[in-house]
């Protein structure tokens, strides 16, 4: 009897859920997408997951990304690209970040990609393959276009792996430590990385603040959408003035809080969580070296005469 009752409840729930789905409000999704777009622009696109790649030292990931990008441009052959593809696929698989999130970065270079492919396809002289009206597609053109496209896509995917698996703070930490030798030639490495991490930290805060102030002014009947360019710029005043004031207030508070905790620049500053290489980081470096060797070897092997 009890089982029956529960079952009935479950069914009712499912029904109401289905109904809720059917009654979706058209604008809601669109707005969500707009918000997601703002998030795409920022560097804070960290995707939390529990994977070895996430746990790696940020310096390793920086170096790995560099190695991968350099290898894409240094070796040009089908077999080398097969190796690169396998390596990239393996890393993406290990990182546990859904491919969907990786692909998101590609959207922004779609235009660039198209232009590159089209220009390479039609403008490189060589053995003609196809005649289209006044344009000629050459064998060399197809080759170069394909290689360029693959390079660009892999470049974005490779760096996406890094930004998706490393928190912005970790990344600047890694940069600071990796660039420390430059301090010897009076490059203010610590200051630069502090500026970077504060800027990164402030992006989501200011986005939130913008959202809040925008809503508050919309509650007072402000209109941020209609009107011509001058009108629109004028309409931004109720948003920008409070935003600037709040940015200054926050900067002030932050400076005060940093001083209250004894911040005096990078000199002699220690870290609560200093970056120390673990055995997995050393293993990752070994994998990188191995990758380079295999890439080098692969580039010597010719497949189909490429």
């Amino acid at each position, binding site marked *: 009897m009890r089982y029956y009752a529960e079952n009935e409840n479950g069914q009712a729930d499912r029904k109401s859920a289905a109904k809720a789905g059917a*009654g979706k409000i058209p604008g809601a999704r669109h707005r969500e997408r707009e918000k997601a777009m703002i998030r795409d622009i920022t560097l804070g696109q960290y995707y939390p997951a529990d994977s070895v790649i996430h746990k790696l030292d940020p310096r390793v990931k920086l170096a790995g990304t560099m190695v991968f990008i350099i290898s894409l441009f240094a070796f040009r052959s089908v077999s080398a690209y097969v190796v690169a593809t396998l390596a990239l696929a393996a890393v993406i698989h290990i990182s546990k970040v859904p491919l969907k999130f990786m692909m998101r970065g590609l959207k922004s270079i779609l235009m660039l990609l198209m232009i590159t492919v089209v220009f390479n396809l039609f403008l490189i002289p060589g053995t003609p393959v196809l005649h289209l009206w006044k344009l000629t597609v050459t064998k060399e053109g197809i080759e170069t276009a394909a290689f360029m496209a693959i390079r660009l896509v892999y470049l974005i995917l490779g760096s996406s792996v890094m930004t998706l698996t490393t928190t912005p703070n970790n990344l600047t930490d890694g940069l600071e430590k990796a660039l420390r030798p430059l301090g010897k030639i009076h490059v203010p490495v610590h200051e630069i990385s502090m500026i970077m991490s504060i800027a990164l930290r402030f992006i989501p805060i200011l986005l939130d603040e913008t959202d809040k102030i925008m*809503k508050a002014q919309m509650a007072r009947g402000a209109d941020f959408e209609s009107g011509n360019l001058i009108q629109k710029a004028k309409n931004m005043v109720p948003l920008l003035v*409070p935003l600037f004031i*709040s940015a200054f207030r926050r900067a002030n508070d932050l400076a005060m809080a940093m001083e209250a905790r004894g911040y005096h620049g990078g000199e002699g500053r220690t870290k609560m969580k200093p970056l120390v290489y673990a055995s997995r980081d050393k293993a990752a470096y070994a994998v990188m070296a191995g990758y380079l060797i295999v890439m080098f070897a692969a580039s010597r092997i010719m497949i189909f005469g490429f």
Partner: protein
Amino acid sequence: MAIRIEHLNYVYSEGTAFEKHALKDINLELFDGQFIGVIGHTGSGKSTLIQHLNGLLKGTSGAIYYNGKNIYEEGYDLRTLRSKVGLVFQYPEHQLFEVDVFSDVCFGPKNLGLPKEEVERRAKEALRLVGLKEKHYRKSPFELSGGQKRRVAIAGILAMEPDVLVLDEPTAGLDPKGRDEILDQVALLHKEKHITVVLVSHSMEDVARYVERIIVMNKGQVMFDDTPQQVFQHYRELESVGLAAPQVTYLMHDLKEKGWNIDPQATTVEEAAESIFAALHKKA
């Protein structure tokens, strides 16, 4: 003439790793002229809920009816709705931007497209209602004290002459005097103008003192919806979700347990005092 919420759901960042179901199947009716308190601990969905009332957030599913009309219908005039349902955000003084207090209060009614005389009449009336002295009208809003700034910001909403006034923690960060002044003024406004007031608050004492109906939010759902007396009877459940009843409710329950012949439903100090006096009289 009321706001009716039906099966409202709201999901933040749908389809990403940060997805959060902020409102789950909310069904409420806010009647005209009521003074309603909304309580709930941080992240319970209070602020999300009230942003739906004037269409700033659009539910993922469900419907909201204002005076019988679905505000999610194609072509519904949201700007008119926003002038009818005035929403005062947390720390509203952060939205001030004009060169002086008076023009800032004029911003709302001006956006409604009213003639200049009407705009100024409304601004003056709103500033009078929040009790700001005339000598401050031409000052920069940034010269004022925290409490004064907040009053100017509330006046900015009142100048649109809304039928429903929604206040999201209007007393956060104010001293006890500033808090009482603001809430007394809101209560007065409710009495004078017969507008519906929705007050979001963390202070059980404030809520118990002013409102006639309490909506308790927990994890995006409505947990209780009743008179303060009834809601605070459930003080043990309230505690389990990180809330509490007013101090006097505890006192009254303790006295009752000690064998006093009193009604433990009192939610304000005045009610409690009366009840205790009556019990003492009976004893004597």
